[in-house]
């Protein structure tokens, strides 16, 4: 075991008794625990589970749906090559723009979501431009969800707002054909409620 450093040397002697006792307990636990291991370079990067690459599919469904996803992606790319236009604000090649309007929960809010061309791994880049979203209390945040049957079902990312306007970059690995057309909503999450029950932005009717 590594020798313990001198506690008085660390914190000084002019610490109130109660605080000193609290710090001393933490000191003893640090000594008891011993040093944490250094991570090897292999563990520096997140070991994404194989399942995370196909988050919505059960194992038995994977093979045929992978094929379907590949076909859909190929068709999508063909569509993109013919249609790629839009207010892209970066080097991303925009293939679709979804306009979102505030619900009764935040009627002044509005947003556009630019969907980019999927990369070779099937990741769809997205850029959200939002205005007028309320700044949430500490611990609150917004979620971008994909919907199915009008209900938020899978999370595409989270963000916070400070100020009137925000631009956020996301990436989604889902097969979009499994979801509603233009099926994105933004939900408001509160510190004690992380369920997607408060939809504040939803697609505007075409």
């Amino acid at each position, binding site marked *: 075991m590594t020798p313990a450093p001198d506690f008085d040397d660390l914190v000084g002697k002019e610490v109130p008794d109660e605080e000193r006792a609290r710090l001393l307990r933490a000191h003893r636990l640090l000594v008891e625990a011993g040093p*944490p291991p250094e991570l090897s370079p292999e563990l520096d990067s997140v070991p994404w589970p194989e399942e995370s690459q196909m988050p919505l599919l059960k194992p038995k469904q994977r093979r045929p749906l992978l094929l379907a996803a590949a076909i859909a992606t190929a068709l999508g790319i063909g569509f993109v090559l013919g249609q790629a236009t839009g207010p892209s604000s970066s080097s991303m090649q925009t293939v679709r723009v979804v306009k979102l309007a505030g619900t009764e929960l935040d009627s002044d809010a509005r947003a556009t979501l630019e969907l980019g061309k999927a990369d070779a791994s099937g990741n769809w880049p997205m850029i959200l431009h939002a205005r007028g979203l309320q700044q949430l209390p500490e611990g609150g945040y917004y979620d971008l969800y994909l919907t199915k049957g009008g209900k938020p079902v*899978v999370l595409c990312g989270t963000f916070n707002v400070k100020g009137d306007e925000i631009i956020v970059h996301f990436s989604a690995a889902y097969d979009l054909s499994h979801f509603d057309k233009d099926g994105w909503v933004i939900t408001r999450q509160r510190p004690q409620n992380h369920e997607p029950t408060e939809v504040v932005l939803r697609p505007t009717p075409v």
Partner: protein
Amino acid sequence: MGVSVALPAAMPRGGSRETTGEDPRDERGLTDGDLISRVARRDANAFELLYRRFARPVFGLALRRLGDRMRAEDAVQETFAAIWRSARTYRPERGPGAPWLYAVARNAIVDRSRNRSEPPAEAPEAASLEPSPAERAEASYVSWRVHRALEGLSGNERDVIELAYYAELSQSEIADFLGIPLGTVKTRTRAGLSRLADLLEGELQ
């Protein structure tokens, strides 16, 4: 495939998940339990944050159980795959996230050891001087909590704490090593200890 989640054999005094104190929040207000719930909804950002918080505690636990770095690295990967698979079984109302993660990690490490028919690295109990299984389990759990808590410090605070406790450097040597004034080292050390005391509240009760 899910992972059965049993309570740790040795919990800090009190012995149940309900008595381990509140789940500490990070600067964004997200607890470990919040992150697990978000992983259950397949939030990749939450999974990455959870990995950053728990990679070293899981690796430390795996090293202690398996005694071999390569096997421990494999166990870390398998543990986080298990977390991804079984996050839906976490129930926030039953307690904070760290004990649940400990149970998942411990089970994944033990399962892996059994599945490969490899003998455990720990020496069998031979003499009365050896710690009992319960004592070893409690020591593992304390290390887990402390290592998790260290991840909750700012980088500046963590550096001075780890140099003081685990590199055997004096405060003056830390100041020289980091190129900062001695007073700053003392301030960061005390602030780091105070923050650790907050994070380890469950241990201290």
